[in-house]
């Protein structure tokens, strides 16, 4: 067997302000983000939609999944603005984390920096938008629909 370094697909390391893992079977999520698309997965066998995306469908034990784009608007389920953050997030403070409900699936993420908390209310329509962070990492934020 030929010796040599095995190429490691560590694209997931580019996700978010600080990524805590770099290798995943859904690493294509990162390429889609770079192309300006936030994507989830759908099981081709049973049709179940998953966000965050999954490589495997535990319901029907199939790994035959396809990508779909998160489009349209979701309803703001809840949110909170942090004034303290974990190591590595100091420069982002303050920031708000939030959850959007798209009906078939939900998306967890952050509220766009330019929206003051007083303009947020539970139930309001928001959309998910890809974002390249100042440190070159890829992420997405929620903005007003």
């Amino acid at each position, binding site marked *: 067997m030929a010796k040599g370094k095995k190429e490691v697909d560590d694209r997931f390391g580019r996700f978010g302000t600080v990524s*805590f893992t770099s290798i995943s079977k859904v690493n294509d999520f990162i390429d889609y983000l770079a192309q300006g698309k936030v994507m989830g997965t759908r099981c081709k066998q049973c049709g179940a939609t998953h966000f965050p995306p999954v490589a495997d469908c535990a319901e029907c034990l199939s790994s035959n999944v396809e990508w779909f784009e998160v489009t349209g608007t979701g309803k703001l389920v809840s949110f909170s*603005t942090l004034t303290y953050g*974990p190591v590595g997030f100091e420069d982002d403070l303050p920031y708000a984390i939030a959850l959007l409900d798209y009906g078939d699936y939900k998306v967890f993420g952050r509220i766009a920096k330019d929206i003051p908390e007083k303009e947020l209310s539970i139930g309001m329509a928001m959309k998910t938008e890809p974002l390249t962070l100042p440190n070159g990492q890829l992420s997405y934020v929620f903005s007003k629909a």
Partner: protein
Amino acid sequence: MGRVGIIGVGQSAFVRGYPGSIRELAYEGFKEAMEDAQISNEDIDASIVCSAPEYDKQRSPAGVLAEYLGLIPQPTFYVESVCSSSSTGLKVAYSMIKAGLHDVVCVLGFQKMSEISSAESQERMGRGADIQWESPFGTMMPAYYAMYARAHMAKYGSTEEDLALIRIKAATYGQMNKKAVYRKPVTMEQIFDPERPPVATPLKVFDCCANADGSSCIIVASEEKAKALCEKPVWILGLGAASEAVNMAGRDLFTGLSVAIEAGKQAYEMAGVGPEDIDVAEVHDCFTIAEMMAYENLGFAKPGEGKELIGAKETYKEGKIPVNVDGGLLSKGHPIGATGGSQIRTIVLQLRGDAGPMQVENPEIGLVHNIGGVGLYGNVTILGRS
């Protein structure tokens, strides 16, 4: 197959920066439980050690602690479900005794949160949830519970003042509890001090429990052994446990914890009792909103009516359902792996009439609600005097 009883309980004082090693910390809870049970190390057939491993420098602490506590060569192993580790340990002990494998089992919970530096601790806090899909956004435990608080307020009209009343109650009893890390009263003015920005809106500093170092120990026995060894055993009547999606995106309920509802249902059914039969309860108040949701998830109040329960002081010692009359996690502190055992100890002492200044009048049946993570794991345990 007979019942399973608790024959001894103990805990260390919960403190900031325990001046000793993990084995010495574990010894403190163990010693109190052994003196309480009045048994010797040879009487114990197995030990279950419970903690959250991210705070440990020691790999596989079970063996190290078992040796220090004189519990070798008996079997020992480690159980983990973060903040609910030691009530999970109790369930495992119950199962082993019911299966006839062992007669007396020691459940030892501990956490020396100061074992790691505050920088290391800050780093771990960022990994408290789904590290692949949530942590990259900079999540923290208070912010998750804050999202539940915001959703609860929006749906039911509960307020920050309602949550503050829960903190004030905790401080009322924390002052009486010699083992609590926070033993001072707390006022509305302190809670709403404009100089202290919210930790994660709408939760403020006083809505959050404090980290602490501590240990707890529960000694569990078969009915036969319990009766032979102990004058006032407390019986395990019901055990419920459930899990939920770690990622918020996988959940449907944001005004309560589904694990608490499910585990409560199981425990009530197994014990053959309902919420109205509970005389005293310990609930997992890592944040004030967590206690508010526990009232409603356990059936002490209807959904959305927890605020009326605390508003009328019904969860005080003299109320219709006393909750956390030992100061709760908010005043006692929350040494992750030791917390469930401390809650169980409180209820055992209450049922035996040994709770001192915190004693509720003549309780027959008590309940322990212990949650791991942000409603990731939930254990509800019902204990009874007979």
